[in-house]
């Protein structure tokens, strides 16, 4: 089982699926998909609903990276809470099957 970290140095984000991100992803020179950066704010009811489900590939074209890591892919999904005010917050990430709780909570007035 992989214990993947979001800080993995060379990760090619192959598939980021969100209803709001259907366009061609922007890539920086290091290969990061800029569209998948952590959201800077919580979604609000006015925004379109979104779910997070993606597969992250590392060296998936088969070549061995410089540090000798084996190529792999890992599924990342989110555990979310639909707050009473309609906002959707991510309360945990499931990375390669492992649950990683986040310290996100519904707004006090919402819950």
């Amino acid at each position, binding site marked *: *089982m*992989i214990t993947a970290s979001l800080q993995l140095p060379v990760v090619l984000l192959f*598939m980021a*699926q*969100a*209803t709001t991100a259907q366009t061609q992803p922007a890539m920086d020179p290091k290969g990061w998909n800029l569209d998948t950066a952590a959201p800077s704010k919580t979604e609000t009811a006015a925004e*379109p*609903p*979104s*779910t*997070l*489900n*993606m*597969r992250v590939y590392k060296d*998936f074209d088969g070549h061995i990276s410089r540090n000798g*890591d*084996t*190529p*792999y*892919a*890992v*599924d990342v*999904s*989110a*555990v*979310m*809470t*639909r*707050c*009473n005010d*309609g906002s*959707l917050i991510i*309360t945990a990430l*499931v990375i*390669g*099957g492992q*649950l990683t709780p986040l310290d996100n909570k*519904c707004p006090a007035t*919402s*819950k």
Partner: protein
Amino acid sequence: MRWLRYLGYALGGILVTGCIAFLIAAWIYRDIPAEVLEAKYMSPASKFLNVDGVRIHYRDEGSGPPLILIHANFGSLLSWDDAVESLKHTHRVLRFDMTGHGLTGPDPSGDYSLERTVELTARFVDALQLEHFSIGGTSLGGTVAMHYAAAHPDRVERLILLSPGALEGRSMQRAGRAVPKAADILKYIAPRALAEFMLTSRFGDPAKVNDKLIDQWYDMWMREGQRAAILARLRSYSSADIVKVTAAVRTPTLILWGEANPQAPVEQAEELRQMLSSAPGVTVITYPGIGHMAAEEAGPAIARDIEAWLANPAVAREASVQP
């Protein structure tokens, strides 16, 4: 010996009064004929389909990719009303009353086991000639949907589980909880207060339970033969080998769970997610303050999340590549 005679009078009086009270109660709580309920609850979308001797009531609404929704134990397809109101704009939504529920009524075979329910679901889907579709259910309906998806991975495109009862059923089995013989009295006397109690205890906010919903539940319970069917289902209920079934699910799955759910605590959502080890792309969404009857309590919010999730392209079906 006079006191003995008085005691006899007293006991006789109590017995006669009890018998009269029972007969009055049995008359008050008598069955409602099926045609009366059909006249009251059928809609233009209502249809009946004869499947293996069972006259299954279902509703077929909207257009788009097919989505089958299965209700909870004690409920009916009406449980999905709020959700369908929104979902039918993007999907062809099919929902049916399980045997012993709603307008479908009892199963002539008398078999209310989970296996029979899943089999009837499969035959219902076949009769409608649905090749590929999404399927979802709440509580018992979720368990049925999960069993169906595990057995038919080639046909189910997406699986939606709203507080499925499988883990709850397993806990009951472990605790050896069985329906007592005394519960048979419900076949003759079933007060409306029981429906009210069941609903309020399964809502996160009991104040949201209204008279219309209570009447709906109660009316359906009072359909002829329904109460005996409900008891028979409770007595035969088993969530089967849920570990094996969940491991066999190879369909993208959405787990939805009310956080104020004493019947199936929200912690089971994570347990279920882990058990669905072969399912690609399991998504979990929880709802603060919502109880077990989430379809009734938070239908619009649930529909919104189902719609968004179904609109997302599925993660590729291939299993993750692990080092």
